[in-house]
């Protein structure tokens, strides 16, 4: 069966705390912190974007395996902050990891679930025999308008998954999607910041899709929450996935390993995949994982995964684990944050 052969993640090292954002906008820090369950969020350096984050994640995935980049037949990069409107991130990443001429490539966009949509298509191509290995990346440098609640969580990071049939460390037993046309969150062409449809964000957006996809998967696989060792859900904040887990009947023990938003914020297309990466860092042979992403607009992708014996010999320490990426950080103030994120209006003396 096909599944994850290798994986790698990257999270920029800069962090900003909600207290610092609240200080500028006059919000109550404890309210924002507790309502969103967020302790800090990652901030990309001025010279980091989705292409650089994706390349670092992809290189980390390759460092942990002996896969020849020439055997990777497809690369899909999911993001809602691709550096170019027209010019693929996928080809930049492919060039940076040394993939030769013949490969399938595209950039995906489905709000926060573009990365997992890529995983589904890579799996289908591997299963159909079109390719030997494929790489799916979920990566973002997400945008939150200054003063908006999103500014507390919109962060940066990404994960690359290599999917194939040989030396699989985690079999993807099944995957499915649910999708509807929902106005919960969007960004129009040319606009720098997204808008959220207030009341559509929670129940009609996130919870409806995440819960429907999780339940459909458990029905298909004839499983119950207690059959899983780990569960990871899309994490726009720390609160939503926790609530979704409780509605579905999962315990804190099952979801805490993959819950990264309190420390790094919402990495959008990277969110569920980063959580899955953190779980694979800890998982043992035989462990079963339920992963459910969510993308506004809206839809969810669910994955039922079983970790194999190959994880024992897997060279995970050839690249930084999520734990390591979370430990080594530098906190910045709001002024530095606005400089890094190009929020300050500048004159001719700045690019």
């Amino acid at each position, binding site marked *: 069966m096909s599944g994850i052969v290798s994986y790698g993640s990257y999270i920029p090292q800069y962090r900003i705390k909600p207290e610092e954002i609240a200080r500028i906008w006059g919000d109550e820090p404890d309210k924002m912190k507790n309502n969103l369950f967020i302790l800090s969020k990652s901030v990309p350096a001025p010279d980091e974007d989705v292409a650089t984050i994706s390349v670092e994640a992809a290189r980390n995935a390759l460092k942990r395996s002996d896969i020849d980049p020439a055997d990777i037949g497809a690369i899909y990069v999911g993001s809602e902050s691709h*550096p170019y409107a027209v010019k693929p991130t996928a080809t930049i990443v492919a060039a940076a990891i040394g993939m030769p001429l013949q490969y399938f490539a595209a950039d995906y966009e489905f709000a926060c679930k573009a990365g997992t949509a890529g995983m589904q298509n890579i799996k289908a191509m591997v299963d159909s025999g079109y390719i030997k290995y494929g790489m799916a990346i979920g990566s973002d440098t997400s945008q939150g308008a200054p003063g908006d609640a999103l500014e507390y969580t919109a962060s940066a990071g990404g994960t690359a998954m290599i999917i194939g049939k040989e030396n699989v460390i985690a079999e993807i037993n099944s995957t499915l999607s649910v999708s509807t046309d929902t106005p919960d969150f969007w960004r129009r062409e040319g606009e720098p910041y997204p808008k959220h449809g207030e009341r559509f964000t929670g129940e009609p957006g996130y919870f409806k899709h995440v819960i429907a996809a999780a339940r459909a998967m458990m029905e298909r696989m004839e499983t119950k929450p207690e059959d899983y060792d780990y569960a990871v859900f899309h994490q726009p904040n720390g609160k939503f996935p926790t609530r979704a887990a409780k509605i579905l009947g999962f315990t804190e023990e099952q979801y805490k390993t993959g819950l990264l938003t309190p420390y790094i914020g919402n990495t959008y297309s990277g969110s569920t995949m980063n959580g899955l990466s953190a779980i694979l860092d800890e998982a043992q042979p035989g462990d079963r994982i339920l992963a459910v992403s969510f993308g506004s607009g809206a839809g969810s992708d669910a994955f039922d995964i079983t970790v194999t014996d190959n994880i024992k010999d897997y060279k995970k320490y050839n690249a930084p684990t999520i734990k390591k990426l979370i430990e080594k950080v530098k906190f910045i103030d709001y002024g530095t944050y606005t*400089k890094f994120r190009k929020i300050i209006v500048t004159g001719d003396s*700045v690019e």
Partner: protein
Amino acid sequence: MTELSRIWRETEYRYNLIGFRCKNCGRTYFPPRDICPYCHRESIGKMEKVKLSGNGEILSYSIVHDSSPAFKREIPYVMALIKLDEGPSITAQVVDCNPDEVDIGRRVHMVFRKIREDGKNGIIEYGYKFRLD
């Protein structure tokens, strides 16, 4: 406007730190050279591409406080002369550190970063920078 043809021509080397090794004397060069300066014509046709590890140590460095507008957001930043493990020395930026963390002899590894953008609608140039181990 940034020279597109130069960026395109150098992409392979800048993205992946590809150098050239002289098969005559074994010396490695970065950036690539067609002829070995030691072996001269003996090296013709004997220069082969080699992927450098991206690991090295700082030989010397400068802290840049005044730079072109393109680097304004990164000031003060560190430019270092780095001796790669395979031999060649290259000049590159050391990122994700405070200047006072940098020192001669410190180990560094290559990272993939944005080098510069040609304004808001031009090409984005990517390539190697370094980070402290």
